[in-house]
């Protein structure tokens, strides 16, 4: 008897909370797009033009969207999927996009394809956000159709990518609905205006913000971190902010050339940016490259971006870093970090020295690099790896030296920090 009354009172007291919780869930569910994303259109007879011109346009757009790079493993059949993406919650493998009916997307209609690109939901359920659907959502119907037409014209492969290896509860696609309720806001990716070409390509197919933004909780991309720069989850490289301040040192034309050539008087692409240049941006027409450059150079700095440091150039007391620099680096990067135009990038104001995170500089010194081959830079220069030549204390010293002297960063790496950054990250 008594117990029942206790329950009744408790229920009365709790009711408002339960209702409030239900309301919050309802609002969050509505804000991630309501039920619409989960109504995946099957079939549908809408015909899509498959003429040579459309297919060629689709190929160009697919390159800007980097579909092949993400949907191919090293040495695997193109577009057959299986490339591994390390995330905070485990490994996700890209899918087979070839026209194979059983293992690819050969029996998808144009509508089903456009739906997956727009909403990030396929017939097997919601897709993990390593697939940059939040960016592809704004792409025009005509462009999605052209990409679809091009995909249809590619050779089929019956390759089956390995199943994802994720921790519970993230291993369930249904759990992604919860993630979307918390972090996915389609109203912010409303259709982009194709006539504003630079912005259309940067925010849409280019998905530049996927790497160049500050991440929030659980790999989300909050609006205030848009283009604020940050460490890329999974691979650990730091991507700088993309805005008027970061790109001040480039003229519009220099920036356009950097995108197509992978190199410029202000720096060369390396790490993940090298892949973007090689697989995607080197195919840009000069008009599109210039449109992108113009747009990038007028992006207003985001509130979360690291403030440029006004610290006066500092030198390291021991002089060890300067010694290593003079011995091992100055031949190429110059006594004053000025580089050599057409051959070696400057270190003064370079991404790796101004970045708040030292990872790029440490990795470059440990493993070196070869610039990307492009039409504008067909015989690229390279930087030797120093992992065998310098010990961790020397690497720390030289990185501290260049970051203090030319980057305004109060860099205090130790040999232990450098040890912790060992390891080549590819794929």
């Amino acid at each position, binding site marked *: 008897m008594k117990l029942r009354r206790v329950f009744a009172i408790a229920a009365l007291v709790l009711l408002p909370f339960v209702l409030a919780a239900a309301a919050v869930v309802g609002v969050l569910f509505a804000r991630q797009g309501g039920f619409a994303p989960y109504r995946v259109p099957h079939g549908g007879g809408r015909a899509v033009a498959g003429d040579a011109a459309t297919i060629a346009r689709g190929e160009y757009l697919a390159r800007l969207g980097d579909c092949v790079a993400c949907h191919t*493993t*090293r040495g695997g059949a193109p577009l057959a999927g299986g490339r591994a993406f390390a995330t905070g919650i485990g490994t996700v493998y890209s899918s087979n996009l070839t026209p194979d009916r059983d293992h690819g997307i050969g029996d998808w209609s144009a509508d089903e394809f456009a739906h997956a690109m727009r909403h990030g939901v396929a017939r097997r359920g919601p897709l993990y956000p390593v697939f940059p659907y939040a960016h592809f959502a704004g792409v025009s119907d005509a462009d999605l159709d052209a990409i679809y037409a091009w995909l249809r014209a590619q050779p089929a492969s019956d390759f089956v990518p390995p199943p994802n290896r994720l921790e519970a509860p993230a291993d369930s696609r249904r759990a992604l609905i919860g993630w979307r309720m918390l972090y996915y806001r389609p109203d912010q990716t409303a259709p982009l205006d194709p006539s504003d070409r630079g912005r259309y390509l940067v925010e849409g197919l280019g998905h530049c913000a996927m790497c160049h933004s500050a991440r929030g909780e659980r790999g989300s991309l909050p609006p205030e971190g848009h283009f604020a720069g940050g460490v890329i989850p999974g691979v650990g490289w730091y991507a700088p902010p993309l805005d008027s301040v970061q790109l001040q040192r480039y003229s519009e034309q220099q920036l356009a050339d950097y995108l197509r050539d992978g190199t410029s008087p202000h720096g060369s692409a390396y790490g993940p940016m090298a892949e973007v240049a090689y697989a995607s941006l080197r195919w840009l027409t000069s008009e599109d490259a210039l449109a992108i450059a113009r747009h990038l150079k007028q992006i207003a700095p985001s509130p979360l971006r690291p403030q440029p440091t006004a610290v006066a150039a500092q030198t390291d007391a021991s002089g060890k870093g300067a010694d290593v620099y003079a011995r091992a680096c100055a031949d190429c990067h110059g006594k004053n970090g000025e580089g050599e135009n057409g051959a070696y990038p400057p270190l003064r104001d370079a991404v790796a020295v101004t970045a708040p995170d030292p990872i790029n500089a440490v990795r470059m010194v440990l493993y070196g690099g070869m610039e990307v*081959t492009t039409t504008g830079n067909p015989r690229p220069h390279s930087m030797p*790896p120093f992992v*065998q030549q310098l010990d961790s204390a020397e690497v720390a010293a030289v990185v501290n030296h260049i970051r203090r002297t030319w980057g305004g960063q109060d860099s205090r790496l130790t040999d232990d920090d450098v040890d912790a950054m060992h390891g080549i990250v590819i794929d």
Partner: protein
Amino acid sequence: MQKLLAFALLLYATAPLADEGVGERLAACVACHGKSGEGVRGAEYYPHLAGKPAGYLFEQLKGFRDGRRVNPQMAWLVQFADDTWLREIADYYAALPPRAHAADTGADALTPERRERAERLVREGDPVRNVPACSACHGANLAGLEPGIPATVGLPADYIVAQFGHWRDGVRHAIEPDCMREVARAIAPEDIRAIATWLSQQSNPEGTRPAPAGSFTPPTSCGALHTETTR
């Protein structure tokens, strides 16, 4: 055969005389492969590159890029290089004088029996296991055969053992038919170390280059020899 010979001559005639800045651009490679691709003393895992057939080197560079050979340090450097540039790199190293000195002269000495067995396997093969002689493909002087078979003398022993392992595990792939895979799989595991040590102790004092294409015919068909004609 004649076509191959003609091609080899053509290649020879058009080989760049000066280095045209290629060497300067390959500063990254010096750290592990030596200033002139001759290898680095003391860093005995890294193979030398100088004087190996251009077709062979080109195939290997593409292999690291495209996943037919696996090595993170190599893949890191060549992953965004196109065929034209890799071809130029291969031509550059192929034109340099072959390495003359042996690899690990200080490596653990072979007992006389093991040394004798190793040398017999290299020169005559292993009829029991149906392994052809190494020299039947790599040449009587083991200096290689254009365009696709490299010299085996002077390679680091650990490197040779590792390559046999890669072929056996299916990590290293040459153009099919991959004759070298069949050799690596057929040979007795306990013989590999002996052969590798023996090969590493051989030098090439005259700097003999790979034999011209078609100058002898391997006992089984090797895809590596058809790169130039099918390209």
